[in-house]
């Protein structure tokens, strides 16, 4: 996983609540493998017509927002299915951070596993950020993970909280499986006691 530190990138507004993972990546594409690349399929049915042409009104089809690396979304972003392909699609398109009032729990966890930073901000902050981005298409938002700050296009700073373990892993680009396997003795000791006490488990 690529480490995440600080970005200063174009941000796109998406003011729809409950954007589920079926919207982010429709189920009919899920047979593909991780390495196949997913960015071109992101938001497929919102972004493209049946003939493959772009839907001009969709936010990422507008020239100013096309290079977006930060998404400012609404309530319950990434709800629904556990498909990690939703994160892969956002990441492969180029997104590195999503700011929203709340996220689907599984999507939230999956994001950290892939170097995509989900940031929770109050509804009013998300609304203000989206309004600023709509007013000034192509404007940047800065995200500083180390300092746990986002900087709006007008320079306003907002703090965000993040689980320290997640932060550490993102900053270092940690391979979580390797990290856990470094604690193999603790796992083995636990299993021994546990399975002696509850042999049917």
């Amino acid at each position, binding site marked *: 996983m690529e480490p995440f530190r600080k970005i200063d990138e174009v941000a796109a507004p998406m*003011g*729809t*609540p*409950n954007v*589920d993972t*079926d*919207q982010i990546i*429709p*189920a*009919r594409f*899920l*047979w*593909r*493998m*991780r390495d196949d690349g997913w960015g071109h399929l992101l938001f497929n*049915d919102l972004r493209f017509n049946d003939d493959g042409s772009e839907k001009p009104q969709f936010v990422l089809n507008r020239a100013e927002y096309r290079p977006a690396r930060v998404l400012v979304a*609404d*309530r*319950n972003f990434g*709800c*629904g*299915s*556990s*498909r*990690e*392909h939703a*994160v892969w699609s956002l990441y492969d398109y180029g997104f590195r951070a999503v700011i929203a009032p*709340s*996220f*689907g*729990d*599984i999507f939230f*966890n*999956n994001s950290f*596993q*892939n170097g995509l930073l989900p940031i929770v901000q109050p509804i009013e902050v998300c609304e203000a950020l989206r309004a600023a981005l709509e007013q000034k298409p192509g404007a940047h938002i800065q995200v500083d993970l180390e300092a746990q700050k986002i900087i709006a296009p007008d320079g306003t700073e907002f703090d965000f909280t993040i*689980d*320290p*373990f*997640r932060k550490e892993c993102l900053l270092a680009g940690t391979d*979580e*499986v*390797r990290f*856990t*396997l470094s*604690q*193999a003795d*603790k*796992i083995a000791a*636990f*299993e021994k*006691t*546990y399975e002696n006490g*509850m*042999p*049917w*488990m």
Partner: protein
Amino acid sequence: MTIMAGPATLFEKIWGAHEIVVRPDGATLLHIDRHLVHDGSNNAFRTLQEKKLPVRRPDRTFATPDHYVSTLGRGLTAINDPNRRSMVEDLKVNAKETGVTLFDLGDKRQGIVHVVGPEQGLSQPGMIIVCGDSHTATHGAMGALAFGVGASEVAHVLATQTLWQKKPRNMRITVDGELGPGVHAKDVILAIIAKISAAGGTGHAIEYAGSAIRSLSIEGRLTICNMSIEAGARAGMVAPDDTTFEYLQGRPYAPKGADWDKALSFWRTLPTDEGAAFDREVHLDAAEIAPMVTWGTSPESASPITGNVPDPAGAGDAVRRDSMERALNYMGLEPGMALSDIKVDRVFIGSCTNSRIEDLRAAAKLANGRKTVVPSMVVPGSGLVKAQAEAEGLDAIFRRAGFEWREAGCSMCVGMNGDLVAPGERCASTSNRNFVGRQGKGARTHLVSPVMAVAAAVSGKLTDVRTLMARH
């Protein structure tokens, strides 16, 4: 491992018993008792191969293909599409190479992973159960802590039999009283989601409690817990009781002999203690719950069948109004129209929410002697559910009524096997999601209970099942 000092909840007891490492910042390494994998797990197995790691505990890992299997026939040859077929083939190869137990096509135990786990006695009280599928909360109905994970976490569990998690908050939803005639578990969970919203349970593990939940069968409890994720909660659970123990006893993977007695005395310690505190409490009166239908593109858009399509003009704020307008536009519905006036083109009975034997019995009872007026299909949740239904003659009832009787799989809930609702078509479905495009591009989904699905199938429109029961 943490033993609780004061009164503790079911969730806290299970969580505490599985802690391997607790870091000062709260990140917790949890032991995983059961890992269920399906035919969408190939990326996770690939990750292990790339890292040159074995599956740490193949004895704790069980696999079955469900998402990509054909419901028209068994065997790989029934899957026409090569991409879909390769998903099922990959699972077979991966299971064989890693020593994971596989309930494959052709084995009666094959089925939807969330039907198979409880049916085989794999899902037991006190366990932590994970699966790379958001409907894993289903298994919480057995008194377990069960939640869905993504592909990276599937790979992590395969490699380590553990997961790093942050302890969620704990919510209790109490449903007291008696459910009215024609009102089933599906209506209860839709009423709950309508009340707390699709994000109401975010960051929480939910315990469903109260007399209405207690009096449900295991099948009903599985339906309730199944849709916890539709309320935003990764985990939903019901305290184990005699109903749970009776269901489990004698199942292939349930403890036997002296182990059973030991397990039973442990399981009886699991229910939430008197005086244990929850972060949030929600109450519903069972008697007030009517048969429910959804009208929008989020499961929270659910109303009693006696109601009307709501008017976006009455929505609280601009964002909500806009999203409601978009949903009604997609669904092809006008504000104010009676829900019972909505005509349907198709009916689907199945999915990990409602494909168990009790669901099929209730549906068949209503279908008996009636005729479907729109294309309708029944997809049992497992080969064993199918065999049981056939032994009881339910398949004959469904067929006589005009339903198609299919082989087990996820089928039209998500359409990954090609069982799709056509663009613009309206489907009354016993599945769990009415998202835009969920059952197929442009498909319009109305979530209902199995008996409400039959009522729609024989009337050609969303119909209050109670009006049919009165005439039966």
